[in-house]
């Protein structure tokens, strides 16, 4: 016969597994942040590619079309998820990242153009990597958190 405390630990596992399953099927599963980060990286890489043509127009057209498609995808993806969370961490991360984005583009493009005057090769891709990394890392962290079960206290192997 199982001891009472072991039964209680197993019930805590049931609760933890349910929480993880909920997070995996919610907007906080990390997918949106990873996609958002990659979109930003591609946007910036498009500017580097458009320099070949001598005009940023191609990149601007690409960014408008691509980002609109991603916004539609995000809306569709969030709608089809079976879990609606009370507090969505993803939205908060994107909000905080938007300040970083403004500062990065302001200094890296506007400030650089005023002070230096010309952009080195792959400059925008570098900005894209710097800008995308917080989003991608946050997304990967959320994705991993939704898949790793925490051992309840008191259970063999638990981190006290």
């Amino acid at each position, binding site marked *: 016969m199982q001891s009472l*405390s072991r039964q209680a630990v197993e*019930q*805590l596992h049931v609760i933890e597994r349910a929480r993880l399953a909920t997070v995996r099927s919610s907007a906080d599963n990390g997918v949106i942040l990873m996609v958002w980060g990659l979109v930003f990286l591609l946007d910036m890489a498009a500017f580097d590619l458009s320099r070949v043509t001598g005009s940023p127009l191609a990149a601007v057209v690409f960014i408008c079309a691509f980002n609109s498609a991603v916004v539609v995808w995000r809306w569709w993806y969030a709608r089809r998820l079976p879990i*609606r969370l009370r507090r969505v961490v993803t939205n908060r991360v994107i909000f905080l990242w938007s300040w970083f984005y403004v500062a990065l583009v302001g200094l890296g493009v506007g400030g650089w153009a005023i002070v230096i005057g010309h952009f080195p090769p792959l400059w925008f891709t570098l900005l894209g990597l710097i800008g995308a990394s917080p989003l991608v890392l946050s997304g990967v962290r959320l994705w991993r958190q939704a898949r790793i079960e925490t051992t*309840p206290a*008191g259970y063999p192997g638990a981190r006290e």
Partner: protein
Amino acid sequence: MTRPPHTDAPGTSAPTPAAHPRFQLNEAIHQPVRLSILSSLAHAEKVDFGFLRDYLGLKDSNLSQHLTALEALGYITIDKLFEKKRARTWLAITPAGRAAFEEYLAVLRQIVEQPEQPPGD
């Protein structure tokens, strides 16, 4: 909302509520399926019926029975909506349900942290 009493009273003498944390466990959510339902709902604003059915590996009718029981206790709400001509059932936990779940969780943790006593004590 009163908590359903625990019926698992061992021995001949009636234990006092303070005797062991297990007597504070809420019988209504002690059942694994109901505990999983409330655990999922506790972390969400609302949850789709189909998700719970697939996650718990239950048939619609079986899950509906558990949901009806929890709704009757005032622990959850069930909303049936039409989204693009498709019926969708959303489940949400009520404040009473959340309180019951958190109390249950606290008792479980108390049991885990409390050292096991030998039988007969």
